């Protein structure tokens, strides 16, 4: 068996606003930024809190449980890396802490629905890159 190289887009893992998120994902933890002044959670990462305009923050573990806000099913690959996975499902998930994540949904397609419960799972795509996906709960 030959191992295929990972041929889908890889995010900028060294993006200063997001590097801690990707590092935590490698450890199979779901995280978001928390403002150290007003405690508001935010995601994706920003260098200042848009709620109180204070700069202090920490990346904190958040609940891996969530529900689907909405979802789509790709029947066309706009990037060749996805061609052999068609059709595939992408959803916006709201976790139990109210943070929204965009991600692939794995599991039976017939069970995917707005409001369906999902749980974060961690796909180690390369030694450096782990993609957060969502599995139907």
């Amino acid at each position, binding site marked *: 068996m030959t191992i295929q190289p990972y041929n889908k*887009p890889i*995010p900028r893992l060294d993006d200063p606003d997001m590097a801690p998120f990707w590092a935590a994902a490698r450890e199979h933890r779901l995280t978001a930024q928390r403002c150290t002044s007003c405690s508001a959670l935010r995601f994706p990462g920003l260098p200042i809190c848009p709620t109180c305009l204070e700069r202090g923050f920490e990346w904190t573990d958040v609940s891996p449980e969530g529900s689907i806000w909405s979802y*789509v099913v790709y029947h066309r690959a706009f990037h060749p890396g996805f061609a052999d996975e068609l059709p595939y499902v992408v959803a916006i998930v709201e976790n139990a802490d109210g943070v929204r994540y965009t991600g*692939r949904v794995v599991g039976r397609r017939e069970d995917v629905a707005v*409001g369906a419960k999902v749980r974060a799972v961690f796909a180690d795509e390369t030694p450096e890159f782990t993609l957060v996906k969502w599995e139907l709960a």
Partner: protein
Amino acid sequence: METIDTDIRGKVAIVGVGHTPQGELPGQSPELNSVLAIKEALKDAGIGREKLDGLITCKSVQGTNTDVMVGPLLGINPRYAQTLDYGTCNFSLHLAVQAILTGMATTVALCYGANARSIRFPFGASAPTLGGASGLMHIAGPAAMALQRHKAMYGTTDEQFGMIAVSEREWAQKNPIALFREPMSMERYLALPYMVEPLRRADVTMLSDGGVSLIVTRADLAADYPNKPVYLLGMSEQTAIRGEYTPDYLNREFLRGAADQIWQRTGLTPADIDALYIQNPTAVWVLQMLEYYGFAPPGEVGPWLAEGHTRPGGDRPVNTNGGQLSESYMWGWLHLVEAVRQLRGQAGERQVTGAEIAMYCSTQVWLKGGASIISTHN
């Protein structure tokens, strides 16, 4: 909502419209397409370029077509020049009105130019983000996400939603410049495969090259122009520039703000609008704006669409040019050109009888919205 009541009604007029052929124009840059369109608009307005003292360009999708890139080809140094990152024509028109009413310019050419089709611009390219890595690509992705949510909340069906594309195709068959003119019945629409479910290919605009231009001037000068002047009755804008940090941003509820402002400022209601134009890279934008601007009851746009109001012969004609789904992409600019032609009575086979007031609603995805109401009466 706090607004300062500034009476702009009837003070600015559109006196010229022009565009290049649409489709594939190999070897023609956005700047060249802009200037070719301005040439047509000047001809329509019956003036030479020396009458222009303002130029407002709209960037092409690849970031070119700025004022200083169009200037050398146009061969004039107007008093005023500016570039908008995302014109959709509404925002460009609004800036022209501001320039004219503040005395910065008197007669302004607005233009858009694109060569996205011939250069094979990669619209589907993914951003280096969690979404991109997850395969959420192309404008069809977020739009389909919003539609799926609408379906879940209100029970909107494929057949109801499909009426937008079917209706625009019916209009396009009456429009000689439309790129997609082959008949598409509802049956044929429903038989199309999904592209990004619940969107089909026919629910999404096509790539096209071309240029579009409008000439705008002070209303008191408009009588000197050969065509019936089309006056601006009112305009509004609302942003949601926080983007994805705005809760439920894909529902684009902020558009209600643009709607409230324009109805309040003009004293008009949806019932006063004879022809409605909605910028539509995807049909989802039409679905949402019909509700937010008050043309269909909130949450009930599906059944309303199925009643056929928007089709030729319907009581609420929408995108009589065929829209961006069937006429041409052009970032929505041809909607306003069509609105002007309808009001002048120059829309040929697709003429809406007695059209006196038209409205154009547009957006920059989920970040900005704007509307304009125009009329042959001031």
